[in-house]
Structures are given as structure tokens and as C-alpha cells.
């Protein structure tokens, strides 16, 4: 029942995304200076928001695991980090494609881009660390510490465009930034289905993690015979 609800939610999210793509291509005008490529913001920014939200959830899960020693929190952490990494990759790649048109280069080592890449690599390191540790409680404990430490980079990534002079533009959604109402509505409107997809992926991944723990328990039972 729960799985069917998740698949239905994912299907609805995919349909909303397809409808949004149609609207952004046919219903929204080109941006005056950037032209059609500006529409990539409707994926670039929601992907970043989703990625950071996932990493924040992993921070909470990491702290909760250290407090309660409940392996459920370890499942939440690994699931949100995996999904966060997928959306982080989408953010980095769409950013590079956008930069190629607007700046004429694929990449530059400015504060925002470099810190985002470091953040992504840190969380990728979290997954490598997990795979290197066999014992479940030890793996959960060290992973929780790693997820908490990794999150320290996220505020730096977020505020780097305010704190430093960067090639990356200044924020357009908060502070002194301005964005046309139609574009803003589409940006948040596209974040909703992206977030729905992220929730589905995290839930599916958590169910897998739960089953993997059951398999580990069965293995121990088999060895005890």
C-alpha cells in the first residue's frame, strides 16, 4: 500500500514536471538579456534547494542517531544524502551548461562553484566511508559524525555569493535581488514536483535500507545455527 502511494506520488510529480516544461517553453517569454537558456534556472535552483534540504535532513538524522542510537536515523541519513547528491549533481551540471552560454566557459574556480563542488565531494566521501565499514553500529556512528561535519560546508556554499565577489550572480530570490513574478512562480512551481520526487526517492531508499538490515539480521541468525 505504502509503495503504491509512493509510486503514485512519483508519477504525479513527473506529470507536473512535464506540464511545467511545456508551460516554461511555450507560456513564458525569453529573458531579455539571456534568452531561452535562462529557463534552466527552473531546474538549477530547485535542484540546489532540494540538495541542501536533503543535506539538512541528514544533519538532523546524524544528530538524532548519536542521541538515540536508533538505526532508523542512519537509514534517513544515508537515504537523504544519496538523493541530495543526485540533485547536487543536477545543480552542478545545469550550472555548467548555463555558464557555457552566459560566461563562455564550462567552469571557473570561484567561491560558489568551488564550495559547491567540495560540498558534493564531501558527501560522496560519506558514501565511500559507509561502504568501507562492515559493522552496522560502528558504520552508523562514524557516518553520523561525517554527516554532521559535512554539513558545515553547506552554509558557506549558500552565503558565498553574499560574502565574496563571485562570477556567480548575486541572489535573485532574497536580499536585494529581484525576479519577475511569472518566473518566480514557475521556479517555486517547479520546486514542488522536484521535492515530491525527492521524497519518493528517499522513502524508497529507506525501505531498501530497512530490508538490508533485516538481511543482516538473518545472516547473523544463520551463522548462529
Amino acid at each position, binding site marked *: 500500500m505504502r509503495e503504491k502511494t509512493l509510486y503514485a506520488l512519483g508519477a504525479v510529480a513527473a506529470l507536473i514536471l512535464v506540464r511545467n516544461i511545456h508551460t516554461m517553453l511555450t507560456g513564458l517569454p525569453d529573458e531579455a538579456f539571456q534568452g531561452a537558456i535562462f529557463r*534552466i534556472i527552473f531546474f538549477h535552483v530547485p535542484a540546489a534547494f532540494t540538495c541542501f534540504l536533503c543535506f539538512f535532513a541528514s544533519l538532523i538524522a546524524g544528530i538524532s542517531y548519536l542521541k538515540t542510537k536508533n538505526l532508523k536515523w542512519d537509514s534517513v541519513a544515508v537515504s537523504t544524502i544519496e538523493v541530495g547528491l543526485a540533485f547536487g549533481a543536477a545543480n552542478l551540471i545545469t550550472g555548467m*551548461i548555463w555558464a557555457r552560454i552566459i560566461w563562455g566557459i564550462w567552469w571557473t574556480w570561484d567561491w560558489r562553484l568551488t564550495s559547491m563542488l567540495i560540498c558534493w565531494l564531501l558527501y560522496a566521501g560519506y558514501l565511500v566511508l559507509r561502504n568501507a565499514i562492515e559493522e552496522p553500529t560502528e558504520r552508523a556512528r562514524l557516518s553520523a559524525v561525517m554527516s554532521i561535519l559535512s554539513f558545515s560546508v553547506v552554509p558557506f556554499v549558500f552565503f558565498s555569493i553574499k560574502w565574496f565577489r563571485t562570477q556567480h550572480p548575486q541572489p535573485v530570490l532574497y536580499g536585494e535581488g529581484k525576479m519577475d513574478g511569472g518566473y518566480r512562480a514557475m521556479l517555486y512551481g517547479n520546486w514542488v514536483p522536484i521535492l515530491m520526487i525527492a521524497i519518493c526517492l528517499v522513502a524508497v531508499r529507506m525501505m*531498501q535500507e530497512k*530490508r538490508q538490515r533485516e538481511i543482516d539480521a538473518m545472516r547473523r*541468525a544463520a551463522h548462529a545455527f
Partner: protein
Amino acid sequence: MNDAAARNFEYLAYGLIACWLILIGYVLTLVSRERRIRQQMESLQRMLEDKEGK
């Protein structure tokens, strides 16, 4: 449509395709992990049943 506008649309398409590919790629890893977990579960259950039978 002039060259710059066509190039803009081309790169926008690359961006959208990249997003979908990442999403599909991750879903495929979930599917393959699901299959592996089911196989492990079945083989372990069989092994436990065999041991209990003996």
C-alpha cells in the same frame, strides 16, 4: 531563429536532458539494489529453511 537563439535552445535542451538522465540513472540504481536485496533475501531464507530441516 538566429544562431545565438538556436544555440541557447540547444544548450537548454542539454540541461533538461542532463536532469532527466541523472534522475533516471538514480532510479535505475535503486531498481538494481532492490533486485539484489530480493535475491539475497530469498537465498538466505532458503539457507535458513535448509538448516532448520537438518
